[in-house]
């Protein structure tokens, strides 16, 4: 083969290898088919590699396929990988899904269920001793912590709320920064680095369950309208068969002892087949905000 293709292939191979480094699957002699590449955005608030590993193994067993698991540092990276077909599936945040779906780069596979609902909310969090703040408009000239620039709850929604209140999000606050994840936003607010931040309810619930000491320093000041919970999506690289198989496996987790245990570890009740119109409001918001 010619040198360009070879180098492209080797680059891809290296990239994939780096992706799978954290979750190198055991090689089963029987499986000759390519492994399923699945990505996990910095979505899961509790960093529990053991649970992630258990989930991967569970899926491998159910799908009888090797599963390559990878974790991305931010939403953008996940989106890029899906777009570039370097990933088959991913559990992404709402905004990335909406963005990708609009352009046809991803399709819905399954939606998780949390606290009996398949929906999520954006939460405005402030320090526990701040008792006066009731909404984002009360935070003029303060320090605000976003989570990810591509996060609906963590950035887009609060900025849109400000705009609707007639403020310019880029000038309203004294200082803003991106903490990178919901967990980091909560840590920043608890430490006093930021006066307020925005996270999603799913992350908040996980924090309360696993890091109660952090939650103690923080209070929820406002809750947004609901939108669909972060879905598992299939990129263009994933075949319909594989997508259906994954969907089936995910949905069946709640009926399985091991599956249920893993779901509980992630704070989920289970997965259901996702409906696109659950994400309509989010899609509308994105269109209105014209972001990113």
């Amino acid at each position, binding site marked *: 083969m010619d040198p360009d293709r070879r180098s492209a292939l080797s680059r891809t191979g290296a990239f994939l290898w780096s992706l799978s480094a954290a979750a190198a699957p055991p090689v089963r002699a029987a499986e000759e088919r390519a492994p399923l590449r699945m990505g996990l955005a910095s979505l899961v608030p509790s960093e529990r590699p053991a649970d992630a590993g258990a989930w991967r193994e569970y899926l491998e067993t159910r799908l009888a396929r090797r599963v390559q698991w990878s974790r991305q540092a931010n939403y953008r990276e996940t989106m890029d990988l899906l777009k570039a077909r370097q990933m088959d599936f991913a559990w992404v945040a709402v905004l990335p899904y909406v963005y990708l779906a609009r352009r046809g780069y991803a399709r819905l596979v399954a939606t998780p269920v949390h606290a009996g609902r398949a929906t999520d909310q954006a939460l405005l969090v402030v320090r526990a001793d701040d008792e006066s703040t009731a909404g984002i408009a009360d935070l003029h000239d303060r*320090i605000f*912590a976003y989570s990810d620039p591509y996060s609906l709850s963590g950035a887009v929604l609060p900025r849109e709320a400000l705009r609707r209140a007639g403020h310019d999000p880029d000038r309203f606050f*004294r*200082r803003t*920064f*991106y*903490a*990178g994840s919901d967990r*980091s936003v909560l840590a*920043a607010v608890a*430490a*006093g*680095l*930021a006066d307020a931040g925005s996270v999603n309810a799913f992350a908040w619930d996980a924090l309360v369950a696993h890091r109660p000491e952090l939650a103690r320093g923080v209070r929820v000041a406002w809750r947004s309208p609901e939108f669909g919970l972060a879905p598992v999506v299939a990129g263009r690289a994933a075949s319909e068969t594989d997508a259906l198989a994954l969907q089936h496996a995910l949905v069946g987790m709640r009926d399985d002892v091991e599956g249920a245990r893993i779901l509980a570890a992630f704070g989920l009740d289970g997965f259901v087949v996702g409906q696109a119109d659950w994400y309509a409001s989010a899609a509308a918001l994105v269109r209105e905000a014209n972001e990113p």
Partner: protein
Amino acid sequence: MKRVFDLSIRYKLPLWGAALVLATTISVSAMLMHDAWDEMREDTLLTAKAVAHAVTGTLADALLRDDVWRAYETLIAQGPDVGGATPFDMLMLVDRTGRVFASTRPQRAPLASELAALGDTQAALAAQIDEQAGEGTRLVDLAPSDDLHYVTPIVQDGVRLGTLIASVPRTHVLPRFRSLALHSLAGALLVLCVLLPANWFWGRYMARPLLQLSDAMSRLGRRLPAVPETEAPYRYADEIGRLFHVYHQMLRELEAREALEREIVKSERLAAVGRLAAGIAHEINNPLGGMLAAVDTLRCHAVLDPLTERTVSLLERGLAQIRETVGALLVQSRVRGDALSPRDVDDVHLLVAPRVQDKRVRLAWHDALPGAVALPANLVRQVLMNLLLNAVEATGTGGHVSCRVERSPDAVHIDVRNDGRTLDEEQMTRLFEPFSPSSSSGHGLGLWVTYQIVQQLGGRIAADRVDGLTRFRVELPVQEMAT
């Protein structure tokens, strides 16, 4: 103050030693502690440098990308809540405009606030930061503030992006320093516990020979020690050893001088008595001559009745006796007499023979005079006679007496010994005095006269005891050998 210096050296030496030990211990400890304090401060600076070095790249990146959270997490990792790995109470990153970019204590230094507006200390700090050139970590000590601030510029590609400030309470080294100081103190006390008693014993040991010497010398003033000191002699040949040596020498010389003084006194005394006696004798002689002449006149020119005859005889005998006694007192140095010859010695031998036989004394006689000697014969005969009679008298019945007369190139030696009654110390010293108490018979003048004769002839006479015998030795110097 003088009173302190007047103390005995048995206290002074150990006290000086103790003072030295204490001074050394204190000064060394103080120096070490001062060094330790400096070291600890230096330590903190080095830690600050190390921290700055470790994070500067990340912080530069964060500043460039406006990544507050990354900067915050980096600072937190170097802060006080990570198990005491670093001593920094607070870390802060300030951007190019002097605003707080990230801080581990957001309550004290909120994001986006101006550093200079946070307080006086912070304002001064901001001013210092503006001035700071170069890339190294620098300690900024703003005196009234409780904290020390270690300031590092964050620079990338020669562009100053911001400043890292690591703050630590001024007293943070105190616990460590306190612990070190206590250890040091304990160590010093331990050393003192060993050294001070050792020093005490050393001082006493060194002082002892000097004290002995001083004691002995102060006793010299009162009386001469009769016996040499029997305390442990000082064995070493240093200055103290020389002092001892000189002291003993001095002792010997003092003893010799005392003996000489005694001799002189004795000699003076005897000479004085002699002069007195001569004076008296002359005074008596004059009227005595007249009286004897008168008696003679009576005898010659008068016819006396028997009673007067007897009375006159009595008078004559009495006066004659007085003349004899006075004559014995007066020793006339009639050098113009005959020279001494061996015949004179034989004469004396003969003269004493009757007395010797009377008392059945065994006399050993040795005459080794080779010929005539230029000495007045009568005087020497008198000396020899007196000594022999004395010896015979002293030895008692059946005793032994020996007599040697010899000649050496420059003197005549007479040696008379007797056994029998010995004389004690007291008698020996007063032997040659007139009317000596050691004489049992005679008028006690014999030895005194002998002494006078010997002195006049320029000789020496000595009495001592040897081998249980009393010995008299006379040495009479002779100018030249008489032919």
